[in-house]
């Protein structure tokens, strides 16, 4: 459980911290700063954290999450 909360905090600090500057300042940039055809803040403040979170999720599920036997159902089932 603590790992999930840590991931949420880290991604939150990245996305909200970066975008509180970049995304809210982008309105005054004309022409807009772009990367891969998108506003630059979308790439650094959303797309890259999304990719990183997905990589972490794959690692977490395949390497970190432990297998355990499932509980037997009670008699009434």
């Amino acid at each position: 459980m603590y790992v999930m909360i840590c991931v949420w905090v880290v991604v939150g600090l990245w996305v909200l911290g970066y975008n509180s500057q970049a995304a809210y300042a982008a309105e005054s940039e004309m022409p807009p700063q772009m990367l891969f055809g998108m506003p630059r803040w979308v790439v650094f403040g959303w797309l890259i954290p999304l990719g990183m979170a997905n990589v972490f999720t794959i690692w977490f599920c395949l390497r970190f999450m432990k297998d355990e036997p499932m509980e037997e159902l009670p008699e009434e089932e």
Partner: protein
Amino acid sequence: MTASLHILASAAGNAALISFAVYMVFVFVLAGLANREQSGKSFLNEYFLGSRNLGMWAFAFTYAATSASGGSFMGFPSLIYTHGWVMALWIAGYIVVPLVAVGLIAKRLNQVARKSGSITVPEVLRKRLGSEMVGTVATVLLVFFQFFFLLAQFKAGAKIMTTLLGDVSVYQSAVTLVGDLIHPIPWVGSAEPDYLLCLIVFAISVVAYTAWGGFRAVVWTDMMQGVIMGLGVVILLGLALNQVGGIGNATRELARQVPPRAGSATLMLKTEPTEVVTLVKGTWLELPEKKGRQQFVRLKDLAKFSGGQRVVENVPVILVRTSVENETEISSIRSQINDELGVGVSSLDVVGYQYGDDRTGVYVSAPGPKSNSGLGFLPIMLAVSFFCFWPFAGAAQPSYMARQMAFKDIPTLRHSIIFVAVYFSMIYFPLIIIFTCGRVLLPGWEIDADRIMPEMATLLTTNAGVPWLAGLLVAAPFAAVMSSVDSFLLLVSGSVVRDVYQRRNPDASEAKMKKVTYWTTIGVGALAMVAMLNPPQFLQDLIVFGSGGLGASFLMPVVLALYWPRLTSQATVAGMLSGGGAMAIFYLIGYVVNGKFSGYELLSLHPFIWSVAVSAVVMMVVARNSPPIQAVLVEKYFGNTDLKQ
């Protein structure tokens, strides 16, 4: 031009009807197969949890499809279209939804549900805490808040069907017949006949296959619906990027856009008409260029000139002011202008957005334009709220919890989380690109932004010369709505049957339980349909209230019940009531302050955040001051544990 567009629209309409018919046949075949699976198994366990043996694809698809409701394919595109790229920040919490919402409780919830033999969320809480009161309060709150969802999805389903079948001649005849039939009936007669017909067909279809096939039918149809949604998004993305001239071109044109102004206009015909002249909703009129912006007026409603009448006043319109450099946007508008109308605008009275009027760059930055707030669409504190809302309100939705109780083993869970993470990335990111392109390819849809999804599907496929494909693409949001409705329907009926009826009639035979289950599912569906005959206008607020209320009521009680041995039944009841109650109070304050049904955002934070905080504090205080639960229950679910921790 008009005739050819009509033929294309008819072709798309017939294709939509065929797609819809094929889709419904598949749905009922799957329900029939699911019904056959029920023989020889414990009825309730199979009907409500599919015998807890969901494999990877079934679990992953049913979770993703239930999550991607009508809101994802109708409301979300409408918001992207209206506010631009800031929606990436609004939805940013979804980056961690698969890991946090699924990973936080799925494993433990599944184990506790198995150990206690529970089928519903209230039952898990009741057995874990050993308290009837906990189960009763949980059932009441679940049915209350979940019903708002059900209502909203019924309306969305019926609305999509009206768009899907709008040009089909058989459908138009049926609408006329329904209109004649309901006209003399009080209250029912005030419903729009096309909406009513679609609502009835939608409700009967979804209730029938859900009641017939139960959870397994819902899961199997979710898988099919999930594939349709994914396929629809991929095709739309390819067509949109191709037709807009690449994403870079779309972003550059978007950056030069300013929000439209709304108001009314006086229209004047160039010559006196000899017969009635009608300008349909959506008609474009071109005005002279001003300060480097080409100006266009678009009608928000129809305008009618009677014979001999040259002037019509107070016609609701929007004024779109496009940069002369926006070639794609201007060419799109001009292709829709009928030069033979002979109509001009003699006067115009419009007002701009409170945030973003006359400002370029608002569609490619935060906080995004907003018509009725000077703070913009997404002030930073609201962005923080939504970053908390999506993963944690998501984790606490009972409809998702029901799925987390049904997977068969840990490898299934593990692979499903990976699948859902990739699936969500492939749905939400492309949707943002598609509908920011939509602002360039289909300007002026602020007049009815909720229709942007089917309109884009029709435009893109017609331009590509494959109008039949529109049927499949419009089936995607329909599938999204259906996959949510069936899950919510089953959840509500499950709570009523298992947590109310069976508690009062513990010796009821399986045949009797079957009968009660079927009739409850049908009854809940019928009730939702009747409630939606004349739907309220503030439906989107009701949806947020419903999901926020469920999150506030269940997040802390469920998480603490799963992980904290010291939790008491009194604290659980207090946590559910204070969380749900706080949401209700914030909405009540919002109603008084804002004059409409909306949550009061104290310090710009969403009411959900405050409600969860209230629930957590109340639970901690009550737990410290109430007697512990029976030691045997703690030992059953946590092993030998020191209760002083």
